[in-house]
């Protein structure tokens, strides 16, 4: 503990030099920028900057790269909330409730809670990295395929929780997502599945094309069709309405806290990452919420939870990188590569042998988090005013951003066709009242589940005992059961002794209560009409 504090204070001394401050700011600004737009991803940006880093001191180079990495998680939420275009894999979940909030005129509070949640969770994650790194690293090593299988079982069973009115439709959508995720080369046999001999499909369906198609393109199509002259978005006029109110903060506090912890641990597991963390946190928040019915319809906690988790996860992902020399994601793999170029070898002795590199990096992340929240909060009114753009400009704009973003991922026209197909699929699903979120969840978690399951059975030579004889796997399976049973029990007890909940937020948003009730009704009607 004292050792960590000593190291951290030394780290702050180094991180606060002019050079390092410059590069942390450069990193987070670049990260936010690439996070806002789909397309150029975080690993690609860090890779492009690799030649530049050779001219910098090792700690400085890593400070910049880390800045890009966690900065992009902040930026990713912006277009998710405003335009239903996830700017980054890890902000797909943010779009679910964030975009609904934007439609209700609460884009400002949504952006605000994303920034605040990111800041709090990022800092909590860093505290974890500072004080718990060695212990968590041990946990990450214990976590083998059977434990992952149990964790993914928890995640996948949550498909039902993302259901709208019909659970059976959610399950069908989930199975559809699972099926899509099987396309591509099977790692275990080397054979190709459902690729129709297209090598573009050999690496599987592009996740970003799927999400943007289902979310953004489908949204534009539905809106263009339903356009009745009434305004779709409410744009609040007063600056006060652009920021989260105290009640929003109270409502999100639990979700932020939960997201911080879940994100850190899931992020620390090699191979899981921040996208998985955001899904787990969102579904957990919904499960534990007293108002699960509000999720998917513009719940502010539904924005806070995934945003907290994906930022905390980035801090978590530094645990295996710095303590074990094991990168858990493409971005951390490049940072490991950069350290190799300097002749540095992250591993179990890295903290004791290279404190002059490790601690400035960690300290700079605390600074970067502060810079990011200071940078993002004042930008909210600017971003929110995007919604004032007339639809005949906004919609083509969304389509252009989506197409350019998807094309630039792999400079592949094939991916653009996928985008079109998934746009149509999303439209049909909306028309038939199928929820799209379970499809995306199953697409992300399905392959992780399948592979962990197959790995477990390779290790045990086909014996399913492996899931009940390993203590951590059992612990997670028990946890899965508890997550399902406990809230149900609690609710039953609540029903037994009913008590009015005074602090309970009303379904109407504050701005609507304040004299815009007529418009609010319109939106509600509009939504019903669409569905």
């Amino acid at each position, binding site marked *: 503990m004292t050792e960590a504090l000593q190291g951290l204070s030394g780290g702050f001394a180094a991180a606060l030099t002019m050079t390092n401050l410059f590069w942390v700011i450069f990193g987070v600004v670049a990260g936010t920028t690439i996070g806002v737009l789909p397309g150029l991803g975080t690993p690609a940006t860090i890779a492009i900057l690799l030649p*530049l880093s050779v001219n910098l001191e090792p700690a400085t180079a890593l400070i910049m790269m880390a800045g890009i990495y966690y900065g992009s998680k902040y930026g990713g939420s912006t277009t998710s909330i405003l335009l239903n275009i996830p700017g980054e894999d890890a902000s797909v979940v943010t779009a679910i409730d964030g975009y609904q909030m934007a439609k209700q005129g609460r884009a400002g509070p949504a952006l605000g809670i994303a920034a605040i949640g990111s800041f709090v969770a990022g800092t909590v994650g860093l505290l974890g990295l500072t004080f718990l790194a060695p212990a968590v690293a041990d946990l990450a090593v214990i976590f083998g395929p059977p434990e992952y299988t149990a964790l993914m079982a928890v995640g996948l069973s949550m498909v039902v929780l993302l259901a709208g009115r019909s659970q059976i439709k959610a399950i069908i959508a989930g199975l559809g997502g699972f099926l899509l995720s099987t396309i591509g080369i099977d790692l275990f046999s*080397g054979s190709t599945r459902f690729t129709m001999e297209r090598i573009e499909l*050999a690496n599987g369906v592009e996740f970003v094309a799927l999400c943007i198609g289902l979310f953004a393109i489908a949204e534009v199509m539905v809106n263009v069709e339903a356009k009745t002259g009434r305004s779709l978005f409410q744009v609040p006029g007063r600056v006060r309405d652009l920021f989260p109110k105290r009640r929003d903060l109270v409502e999100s506090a639990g979700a932020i806290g939960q997201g911080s912890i879940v994100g850190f641990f899931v992020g620390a597991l090699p191979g899981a990452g921040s996208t998985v963390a955001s899904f787990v946190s969102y579904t957990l928040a919904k499960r534990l919420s007293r108002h699960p019915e509000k999720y998917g319809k513009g719940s502010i906690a539904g924005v806070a939870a995934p945003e907290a988790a994906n930022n905390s996860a980035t801090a978590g992902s530094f645990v295996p990188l710095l303590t074990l020399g094991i*990168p858990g994601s493409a971005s951390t793999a490049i940072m490991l590569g950069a350290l190799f170029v300097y002749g540095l070898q992250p591993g179990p002795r890295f903290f004791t042998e290279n404190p002059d590199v490790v601690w400035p990096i960690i300290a700079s992340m605390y600074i970067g988090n502060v810079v990011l929240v200071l940078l993002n909060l004042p930008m909210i009114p600017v971003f929110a005013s995007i919604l004032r753009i007339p639809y005949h400009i906004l919609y083509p704009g969304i389509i252009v951003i989506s197409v350019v973003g998807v094309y630039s991922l792999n400079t592949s026209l094939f991916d653009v066709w996928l985008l079109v197909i998934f746009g149509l699929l999303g439209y049909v699903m909306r028309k038939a009242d199928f929820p799209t979120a379970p499809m995306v969840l199953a697409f992300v978690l399905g392959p992780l589940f399948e592979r962990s399951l197959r790995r477990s059975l390779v290790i045990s030579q086909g014996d399913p005992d492996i899931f009940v004889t390993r203590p951590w796997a059992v612990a997670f399976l028990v946890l899965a059961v508890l997550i399902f049973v406990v809230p149900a029990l609690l609710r039953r007890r609540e029903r037994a002794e009913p008590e009015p909940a005074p602090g309970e937020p009303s379904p109407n948003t504050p701005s609507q209560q304040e004299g815009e009730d007529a418009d609010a009704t319109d939106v509600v009607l509009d939504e019903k009409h669409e569905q």
Partner: protein
Amino acid sequence: MSDTRMARALTSCALVALLTSACGLQTDESDGGAGAQDGEEFEPQDPEILVHTGPGGGSDIFVRDVVSMMREENVISSNWSVRNEEAGEGAGAMSYLLERQGETDTISAMTTTWLTTPQTIEGASVTVNDLTAVAGLIIEPEVMAVSADSPYESLTDFIEDAESKPGELVQTGGSTTEVGALNGAALQAETGTDWQFLSFEEVGQRVTALLNGDADMMFGSAQDFASQVDAGKLEIIATISPDPSPVFPDAPTVEDEGYDVGLVPQVRGVMAPPDIPEEALTYYQDAFTQLLETDSWKEYSETNGLVTQLRVGEEWQSFLAEQNDRVAEALESADLG
């Protein structure tokens, strides 16, 4: 010194920022221009080098390092942009080259994967025989790692244990068609043993499986294990290659241990589109030949455990043909062909 460093860093960063906003993957810094200096010698206009992995993948980091070394050592006068053509484990990059028949601005890095892919992936119709072989650069001898508390002290120990427990021991690695898996299959075929293969996408996950005992051994590059070996958590007990590893020179090779197995080497080389003009081919061959003679390269290859084996043109082409047969054989014995 530190001022010029800073200035250089700032300039390149400004350029990079511009390009970043342009949403492209190219890193064309275009300082100095790419025009031929004396008007006679060939020089590519807007050179790009393909990589078949995504940013952060093994080939990607290798190529980015190579380009920055070539720049630093003034082997090339303009920066080469790196293009990630990820589709289908090399199949995408190979088709990309084929489509650019006769063009002189695009070359690609290749690995042994380029030999495996056309034999295993549906729809991957282009093979290295359809392309121009520029040069082979290195062999990366794979080493065999086990946990420090495992009972094995040599490859023979492991094989003997595998003989007494058929189907129980576990080797970890990437896909079942990667070099480590093929060599594992070849060893099993040679010794009449049988063990499991545990696939993970990321190297980190494989090393984790080795550390927590889910897997008994792994074939991988020296860099995959260096830090864990340093910390005393893993041990290197053999080299799965005819050439010793520069990082672990004491680890006996498969041949030293008395096994006669046709191993598939992990090679890295350079390919170009078919039918490129002679002067362009010579230009690229000279560039890589020069690089391999520089001090930065020597230092780099040593720390990364690479064995420099320059093969140019014809020699490279026939080496590839030879390895291609070996891969086919290994796939056969692994029942994947």
